[in-house]
């Protein structure tokens, strides 16, 4: 377990170190988000700051790696807490060297009176807008992920996997929203040259759509694989091949965006980019922050070129954060809040006996076991040690395939907050069920026992 945590920390450290390095990188006449004239790059003072920053970044990366090692000697729970604290610390301190040396560079710039560029106009290539109107989007590439997600919806309905059904519906919504956004992507005027603008905008549309189709296809494949393997376990090689394909698609999707950003950087290396005013950028705790009231765009490319960031001068930025918070609240409410509400109103899990069948019904699961199939029945208030194999566990309810030391492999249909269970051993396997009312679970158990008594 601890080796796994160290591996996770290693990946996190690599991502954070790379992100910080690429945010600060010298590109398009800027270093540490400060515009530098070409002649200044040969000055000793500039070279000194650049070298000092590089050394500070190296020291910070080494410190991140060394601080991972104590996890190997800690207890699993403490290691998890350490992981969270460590992650918070590297995020909060990650941009400290960049802030320090950026301040020094700005002071040097003011001292040497290097020319500062101040752009207060939005420049738009009108001919580019006219030509890009006729760009044909390749909608066909999104057909495959859409079909796979639709199939997942049907399969999950057939097998009553409501959580997977919700995931598939959500994925369709995300896929279509992403497509709508990409088809309505505004054109960017990168330079004064029309042909270069046209080439880059065509490339951007094509590459972004390609990357989105790969990422959504990988997700659709993953979800479809989980859905079908629920009831028909896949062979190791099929599972391995599927996972490999998913990983390749994700990697190719990320590489496509990376490749576009590299090409853009090369093509624009001799052009001044719009809004490169030093005052537009600040380095916050979590990275570069863009704030430019003269820029009407809400989403802009982040300095590393791989992601998007917000223009915090626009009121839309505030609403974007509210929207993110609302989505998190809705998702958490759906996963924990709604089941908890049902549980408190005794509507989460209901045990009944109908026509010689034991039935457990819930908005999240449903199971019927015929009495003639039951070989043994038992009641317990402690299931002992166990783990989930394939299913859902939200603490409030548990459903799917589990393994318990006491009962072996079994299927659970239980309201997790009520420690009163009926363990049914049947011809097809072991089932553990309960009602969201502990007394009723006991009552049903006694009734079945009476009915099955010779």
């Amino acid at each position, binding site marked *: 377990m601890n080796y796994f945590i160290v591996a996770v920390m290693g990946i996190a450290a690599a991502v954070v170190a790379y992100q910080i390095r690429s945010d600060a990188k010298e590109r398009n006449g800027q270093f540490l988000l400060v515009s530098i004239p070409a002649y200044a790059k040969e000055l000793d003072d500039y070279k000194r700051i650049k070298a000092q920053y590089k050394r500070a970044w190296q020291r910070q990366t080494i410190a991140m790696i060394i601080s991972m090692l104590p996890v190997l000697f800690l207890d699993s729970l403490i290691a998890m807490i350490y992981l969270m604290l460590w992650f918070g610390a590297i995020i909060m301190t990650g941009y400290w060297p960049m802030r320090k040396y950026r301040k020094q560079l700005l002071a040097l710039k003011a001292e040497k009176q290097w020319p500062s560029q101040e752009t207060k106009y939005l420049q738009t290539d009108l001919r580019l807008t006219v030509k890009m*109107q006729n760009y044909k989007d390749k909608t066909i590439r999104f057909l495959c992920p859409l079909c796979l997600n639709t199939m997942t919806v049907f399969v999950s309905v057939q097998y009553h996997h409501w959580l997977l059904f919700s995931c598939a519906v959500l994925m369709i919504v995300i896929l279509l929203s992403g497509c709508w956004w990409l088809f309505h992507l505004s054109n960017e005027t990168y330079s004064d040259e029309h042909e270069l603008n046209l080439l880059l905008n065509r490339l951007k549309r094509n590459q972004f759509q390609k990357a989105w189709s790969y990422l959504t296809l990988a997700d659709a494949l993953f979800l479809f694989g989980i859905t079908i393997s629920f009831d028909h376990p896949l062979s190791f090689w099929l599972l391995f091949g599927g996972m490999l394909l998913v990983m390749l698609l994700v990697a190719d999707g990320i590489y496509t965006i990376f490749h576009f950003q590299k090409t853009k950087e090369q093509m624009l290396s001799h052009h001044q980019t719009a809004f490169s005013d030093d005052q537009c950028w600040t380095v916050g705790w979590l990275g570069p922050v863009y704030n430019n009231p003269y820029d009407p765009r*809400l989403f802009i490319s982040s300095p590393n070129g791989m992601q998007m960031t917000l223009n915090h001068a626009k009121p839309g930025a505030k609403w974007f954060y509210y929207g993110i918070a609302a989505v998190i609240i809705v998702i958490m409410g759906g996963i924990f809040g709604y089941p908890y509400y049902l549980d408190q109103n005794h509507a989460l899990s209901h045990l009944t006996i109908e026509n010689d069948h034991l039935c457990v019904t819930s908005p999240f699961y449903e199971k019927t076991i015929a009495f003639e199939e039951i070989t043994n029945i038992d009641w317990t208030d402690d299931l002992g040690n166990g783990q989930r194999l394939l299913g859902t566990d939200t603490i409030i309810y548990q459903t799917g395939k589990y393994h318990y030391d006491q009962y072996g492999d079994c299927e659970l249909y239980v309201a997790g907050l009520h420690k009163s269970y009926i363990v049914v051993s049947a011809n097809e396997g072991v089932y553990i069920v309960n009602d969201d009312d502990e007394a009723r679970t006991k009552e049903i158990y006694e009734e079945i026992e009476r009915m099955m008594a010779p």
Partner: protein
Amino acid sequence: MMIQLDFHSDIPIYVQLRNEIIRLIASGQLAYGDPLPTVRALAADLHVNTMTVSKTYALLKQEGFITTDRRHGTRVLPAESVGLENVESSLSLLASEAVIKGMDKQAFLSLCEKLLDNIHYEKKPLESN
């Protein structure tokens, strides 16, 4: 063919956009009969509301600089002698401002001449399509 908008100016965006399109026509960058983008596409690229671009197009159409039809969309098609009274009143105001601020007649006329030399508008026959 660049248009520049200042989002912090006191001049409304739709007026700035109208002025920029007229400047492009006068400088020859937008030729007679050239198509203009759709309201939706231009609004997206300028990051403004579609109503703003729509208002600009309506104003340019009313002033006789552009024309819109179902088949060809919006095109630069300045109608001669439409809105000339507007030019006269604007020029009269500018001349008054120049005189009040101390510019003499000769300086004003040479400035006008210099600005007119930068205008390369030329009416061409439309391609039949």
